[in-house]
């Protein structure tokens, strides 16, 4: 019981840090992108498309709790949660969203390319499903080099309709690679519901065609995700090849932060809000009893997260912009300087 409570508190902490990060990023992004009929008005601190993982925190938290720094992770356009959960520094992430020199990418990438290679987080990706072949390549290297570690490969429910999904699953199984595929099924693909665009039962069902064992889990139940991921990660570490976790969750926000998602049934959202993974974790914690039962511990954790994010925003805001000369570094070494 005590152990479960400890686990839950740690997961809760990861979740509220993600939530606080997303909320702050969202606030800082208003007016920052022209789309959905609105023009960018230049007022935003976080510019460009910002894909929030609000509501999906349990998947990132539950899976990444089992990962070591020697493990790799590849992510999607909706990658903040995975990056934080993999152990990246929150302040440097926020700085990257602000486009500052102190960000992980020195302001070159922004939200869609959030990454912290030093903790094995090999990057978000602006192209749907594009992280998947990269993940299997990283896992292939881990295997060939007899290094410990596995690669966690996150992708959305829309991504399973792109070719690289198939090529990556096949590859991982053929070479018996240490890959954990994680389908973060939030039931939407941009402004289109994923269901009618998907033949069959989705990621898990497709994995079967590749003899890849899979498990479908309630992705808003952080303990369930944690347990399922633990089981699969254990098997992968035992050398039993790729596995797939199909986590069903929900995208509480629009596709990007400025998308009001007016195309979806308000009832669907209302239902989903009741299923908020953070609220559910609080309820479970209360049910377990013990020191966390009065929820003040959780409140303290949440306050701490909010405070950490507030400080990160302030630091990002105060941080220096990149030098314009930085636009010309890290392009390629051969012929550096031959820009025209």
């Amino acid at each position, binding site marked *: 019981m005590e152990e479960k409570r400890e686990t839950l508190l740690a997961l809760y902490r990861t979740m509220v840090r993600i939530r606080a990060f997303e909320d702050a990023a969202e606030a800082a992004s208003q007016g920052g992108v022209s789309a959905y009929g609105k023009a960018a008005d230049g007022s935003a601190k976080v510019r460009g498309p910002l894909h929030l993982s609000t509501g999906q925190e349990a998947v990132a938290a539950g899976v990444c709790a089992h990962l070591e720094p020697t493990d790799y992770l590849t992510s999607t356009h909706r990658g903040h949660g995975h990056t934080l959960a993999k152990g990246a520094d929150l302040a440097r992430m926020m700085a990257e969203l602000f486009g500052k020199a102190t960000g992980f990418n020195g302001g*070159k990438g922004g939200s869609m390319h959030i990454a912290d290679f030093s903790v094995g987080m090999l990057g978000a990706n602006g192209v749907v499903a594009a992280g998947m072949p990269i993940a299997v390549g990283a896992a292939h290297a881990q295997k060939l080099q007899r290094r410990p570690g596995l690669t966690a490969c996150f992708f959305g429910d829309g991504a399973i309709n792109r070719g690289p999904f198939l090529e990556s699953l096949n590859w991982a199984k053929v070479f018996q690679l240490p890959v954990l595929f994680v389908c973060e099924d939030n039931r939407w693909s941009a402004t289109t519901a994923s269901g009618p665009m998907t033949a069959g039962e989705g990621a898990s069902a497709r994995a079967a065609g590749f003899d890849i064992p899979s498990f479908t889990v309630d992705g808003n139940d952080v303990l369930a995700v944690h347990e399922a991921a633990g089981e699969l990660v254990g098997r992968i570490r035992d050398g039993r090849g790729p596995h797939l976790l199909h986590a069903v969750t929900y995208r509480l926000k629009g596709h990007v932060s400025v998308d009001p998602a007016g195309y979806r049934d308000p009832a669907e959202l209302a239902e989903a809000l009741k299923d908020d993974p953070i609220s559910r974790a609080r309820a479970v914690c209360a049910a377990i009893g013990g020191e966390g039962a009065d929820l003040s511990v959780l409140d303290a954790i949440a306050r701490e997260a909010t405070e950490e994010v507030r400080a990160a925003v302030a630091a990002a805001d105060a941080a220096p912009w990149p030098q314009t000369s930085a636009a010309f570094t890290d392009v390629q070494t051969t012929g550096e300087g031959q*820009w025209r």
Partner: protein
Amino acid sequence: MALMTYAQAAVLAVRKEMEADPRVVVLGEDVGRGGIFGQYLGLQGQFGAERVIDTPISEAAIMGAGVGMALAGLRPVVEMRVVDFALCGMDEIVNQAAKNRYMFGGQGRVPLVARMCNGIWDASAAQHSQSLEAWFAHLPGVVVVCPSTPQDNYSLLRASMACGDPVIYMEHKTLWGLSGEVDPEVKIPLVKAQTLRKGGDLTLVSWSRQVAICEQACRELAQVGIEVDLIDLRTIWPWDREAVLASCGRTGHLLVVHEAVQAAGFGAELAATAAEETGCRVRRLGAPRIPVGYAPMLEAQSRIDADAVVKAAKGLVENRNLEKVHA
């Protein structure tokens, strides 16, 4: 005549073609909701989900299915969202759509318009900001169009849908909200460039979003007495040789300005051809060969502003580039 945005002009063009020809269909991600730029707004409501087809996220299949539909008698408008994602359907564009008619000896045709908007998308970084018109100019079998105004977008989209060839139709990612007068009766043929200003000192050729920036530069140049023939190329391939080369012959100087990377950009083709055919002095201005960065001042390094155009124009007319080299 009506005031409308570049996106609305496109919607109107597709609507008119769909009304006139039941073979026209639209397919792509999120087109049912109007497309992420509103470039299909209202069409699914009018024509139904069978003709305005929401598709899975499957660029290869979207493009490939477009080819199959075209071979089977439809006239698809294939939405690739942005040119950057069209890379996911590249075999289908290059090896299938472009070559089909030729390699099967004219047994079939692929009358299809593949829309893939081009250019820097503000603060969207390297994977959403490419301009690849030069690639398609290099690809036998396709037409390449880059409209710069609502009227052009309306008229050229209709011309593209009617031409019977596979067309790479490259709107600009940040022109969607641009307003302008559109006369639905105006026809603009493919391949015809538009001369926006007349002047004897310099031929300035540009297209897409860069045209407006060049117009601004021309106003500044006029103030220092440099009069410019400003040409909006509109169709990148086949391009309007007559208009461009005649102007180069008159002015003796050609400056090409485009948003794409300068190295091996389409400006090279224009400059090389003008130098070959007219012996005029040439100069190009395109982005440096770097990916587009996210932070505003990094992104700005990939943009060509009016100042840069003015400077290059002056340098060319005053023959500074040659001096520099010969010094």
